[in-house]
């Protein structure tokens, strides 16, 4: 393979020359495609180079199918394009074929280096495409390859380009290729190239500039580069801070979701519920089951799976919570140590039960399409699933506040926790309120499970990983105060993310733990301590 790459590039060069001079010399796609049958990786590499050599945009679908793993062969020697659904297409003509069924197809497998070749080839072949997006990604691909041989092609494309955004990227790609060519550039060319690259202000352009600093011949060139580097560094520094804040908020929202149910069972009721993590886990498994049913029965509705899972997870874990309260915890009120032991034992039982039923391995919970991928916001890469989890955490928090402060159940809950006997004397059924409160807390934990199933393993150990963090957040924020939990979760999340780049993930966790211990020494009741006699009740 080491010598196959230069060979491919050579072929490609010949192709570019050939495309201009004598297009008839190259093989036709109809001749090349059949050679991909039963081909070794090296033979495939040659076939890709030969396809590129045709210079024919008609080969793009075949190349794209190869790159995406949608190119198949049959035992009979046919090569077909099949995207998992829809008709099976002939790789040469692109027409649907009869008489070939999905079962006959076996995939033509490729490796990373072929994938890169294919991407670069598609970039070259699609630079003149009609679609803005295709041209944009072609130009981006050319920027990262920075191949001096592409300069004529890019210049042609820039001259024809009408979309300003795409043209800017093309100019950056040309600048990168010019700087990589090693030719002596005129002052003007050089400063233009530097300016074009500096305008990207990302780490890639920083690397290009830094490399060229050594090649700069005159002082003016050096100043131009240094100014560019300075600008990029400033932009990056601001972006890093913003990125850390965002990561912190995102981690904080996960912590908030995991802890907020505990803020009710532990914070409001004072029950040390070690099985809280298992409620989260059950919520995640409910999501898994919902998705499983949807996958087998209504595959089209997959994007709605979470919308169905959310109320279901709340109900299931809420009912489990009520059952736990009625069955175990109500006999242990006022005996925190026994409660701790009983719920811890319960957590082990639930874990092992889930392990027996669902197996010890991770279960596959998919991201709906609206939760996959990233988007760029002011230079920050924000992943959709994190954003949705932040929103979800905020909504859950707001709803919970509403329930506690604006409903009669909330009123009764607060009354019972503040003064049980007085509440009882006023005609509140305190056992019922206890069960409902515990059910609410558990149900919210189930909601957290739905969210966590999107970013973490759905395995019997899921809950275990969050129980300590949850207690940490509730204790730090102040027992019995939802706002405290919110501030606590966000503070811990952001602090963790600012420490991590310097201290590493392991040390960051330790530092946070030590800080919390010191903080609790100073303020045993957390950030927002409840005042009044409820505290001592």
């Amino acid at each position, binding site marked *: 393979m080491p010598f196959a790459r230069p060979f491919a590039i050579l072929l490609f060069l010949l192709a570019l020359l050939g495309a201009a001079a004598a297009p008839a010399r190259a093989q036709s796609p109809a001749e090349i495609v059949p050679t991909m049958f039963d081909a070794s990786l090296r033979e495939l590499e040659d076939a890709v180079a030969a396809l590129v050599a045709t210079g024919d945009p008609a080969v793009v679908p075949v190349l794209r199918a190869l790159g995406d793993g949608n190119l198949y062969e049959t035992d009979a020697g046919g090569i077909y394009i099949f995207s998992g659904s829809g008709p099976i297409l002939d790789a040469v003509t692109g027409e649907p074929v009869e008489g070939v069924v999905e079962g006959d197809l076996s995939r033509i497998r490729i490796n990373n280096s072929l*994938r890169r070749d294919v991407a670069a080839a598609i970039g070259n072949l699609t630079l003149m495409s009609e679609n803005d997006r295709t041209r944009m990604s072609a130009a981006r691909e050319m920027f990262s390859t920075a191949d001096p041989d592409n300069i004529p092609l890019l210049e042609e494309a820039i001259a024809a380009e009408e979309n300003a955004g795409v043209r800017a990227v093309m100019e950056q790609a040309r600048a990168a290729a010019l700087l990589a060519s090693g030719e002596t550039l005129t002052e003007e060319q050089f400063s233009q190239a530097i300016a074009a690259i500096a305008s990207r202000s990302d780490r890639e352009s920083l690397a290009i500039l830094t490399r060229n600093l050594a090649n700069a011949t005159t002082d003016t060139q050096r100043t131009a580069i240094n100014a560019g580097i300075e600008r990029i560094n400033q932009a990056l520094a601001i972006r890093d801070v913003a990125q850390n804040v965002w990561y912190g908020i*995102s981690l904080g929202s996960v912590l908030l979701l995991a802890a907020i149910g505990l803020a009710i069972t532990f914070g409001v009721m004072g029950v040390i519920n070690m099985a809280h993590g298992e409620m989260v886990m059950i919520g995640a498994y409910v999501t898994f089951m919902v998705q499983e049913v949807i996958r087998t029965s209504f595959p089209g509705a997959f994007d709605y799976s979470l919308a169905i899972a959310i109320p279901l997870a709340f109900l299931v874990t809420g009912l489990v919570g009520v059952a736990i309260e009625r069955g175990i915890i109500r006999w242990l009120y006022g005996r925190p140590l026994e409660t701790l032991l009983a719920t811890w034992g319960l957590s082990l039982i639930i874990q092992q039960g889930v392990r*027996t039923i669902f197996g010890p391995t991770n279960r596959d919970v998919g991201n709906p399409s609206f939760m996959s991928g990233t988007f760029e916001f002011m230079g920050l890469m924000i992943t959709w699933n994190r954003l949705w989890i932040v929103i979800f955490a905020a909504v859950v928090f707001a709803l919970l506040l509403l329930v506690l402060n604006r409903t009669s159940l909330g009123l009764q809950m607060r009354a019972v926790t503040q003064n049980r006997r007085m509440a009882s004397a006023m005609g509140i059924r305190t056992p019922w309120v206890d069960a409902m409160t515990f059910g609410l807390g558990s149900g919210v934990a189930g909601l957290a499970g739905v969210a966590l199933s999107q970013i973490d393993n759905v*395995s019997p150990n899921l809950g275990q990983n969050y129980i300590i963090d949850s207690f940490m957040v509730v204790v730090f924020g102040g027992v019995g105060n939802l706002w405290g939990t919110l501030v606590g979760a966000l503070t811990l999340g952001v602090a963790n993310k600012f420490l991590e780049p310097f201290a590493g993930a392991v040390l960051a966790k330790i530092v946070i733990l030590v800080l919390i211990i010191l903080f609790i020494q100073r303020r045993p009741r957390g950030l927002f301590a409840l005042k009044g006699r409820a505290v001592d009740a």
Partner: protein
Amino acid sequence: MTDWTKRIGSAVLAGAMGASLFAAPALAQEGEPIKVGILHSLSGTMAISETTLKDAMLMLIEQQNEAGGVLGRPLEPVVVDIASDWPLAAELARRLIEVDDVDVVFGCWTSVCRKSVLPVFEELNSLLFYPVQYEGEESQRNVFYTGASPNQQAIPAVDYLMNEEGVERWVLAGTDYVYPQTTNKILEQYLLDSGVASDDIMINYTPFGHSDWQTIVSDIVAFGSEGRKTAVVSTINGDANVPFYRELANQGVDAADIPVVAFSVGEEELSGFDTTPLVGHLAAWNYFMSVETPENEEFIAAWHDFIGSEDRVTNDPMEAHYIGFNMWVEAVEAAGTTDADAVIDSIVGIEVPNLTGGVAEMLPNHHITKPVLIGEIQDDGQFFVVWETEDLVPGDAWSDYLPESAVLEADWTDPMNCGNYNTETMTCGGSAQ
């Protein structure tokens, strides 16, 4: 009916059958049964990986009994659950050997488990077959290492990236415990020896079960945007992998740009999620389920039959148990007894076929010969082999890339009979310090 609904039924059934199993006497063969201990975690964190190995062992024992047992005697499995609790593992190992009277034990996954049961096997002079790739730097008379040592997995993987993918910058990412720490120490030294500048190596450790990878993945992206080819060598353990790969996919890290080669991610770990975004990331093992050999096809068919599901995958540690079990059977047949000393003497040099079309030989240092395969993850959760060593690689107990262990050698045959023979001081007993 879906998989998990069947599982509920089978769990109930298994309980009922388990009760009757103990009542039924061994029928097939004459003579006192030979007891085989299985020491794996069936609950707790490690159950995710080890439960499968327990099942694989039960299958191998069942097959051997159908083929007539060993020395004309049936094999009887004794399964214990170490519950991912390492002191408990030592206690249970003792119970297996002293109370249950087993002749051989197959077990452990983590290095800490192996380290904690070692003294028990040494003291009671019994046999342990350890099936998982590990950090090396060990050779013990009573232990047989059927998983890969670093020179059978990590070093070839790095060679592949360096030579075939042209990688110049390296991220060594691992979970914070003994296997990644030692492996990364060896790899770092190896990379430095190969002329990689220390600025081009980034080492990162994360806690067990780490789930928030945002910062680390963006650090990796930043490290890789220098314009030179970057790769991640991952010794991230089990559970933390899914969120790690998810974050990679979400931040748009493509295998063609920054490939990740993993040493702890196999078919079993991937069966937990949709691998479409991971296509092209790599793993280095000595066995892949996708290898097409008659032995492997037979093994997979038997496994599906035994476990009652076509969806279950096979993986590298299962093959290690397959090899280890067959080696033990042959050694016992050769020695004519299950006595530990006799088996230790007879097993060195024994060759059994592995599942990838080669032969595994037990070496005097109690490691075995293995091929090294590099596979790329496919969208069906399987691996496509893109590279393999031409010859079998003999397992090296002591790394040649660490100065303090380069002088050590292990050989459990006469005249040396030592696990850490120092070739400089000519004494048995570890490094010069």
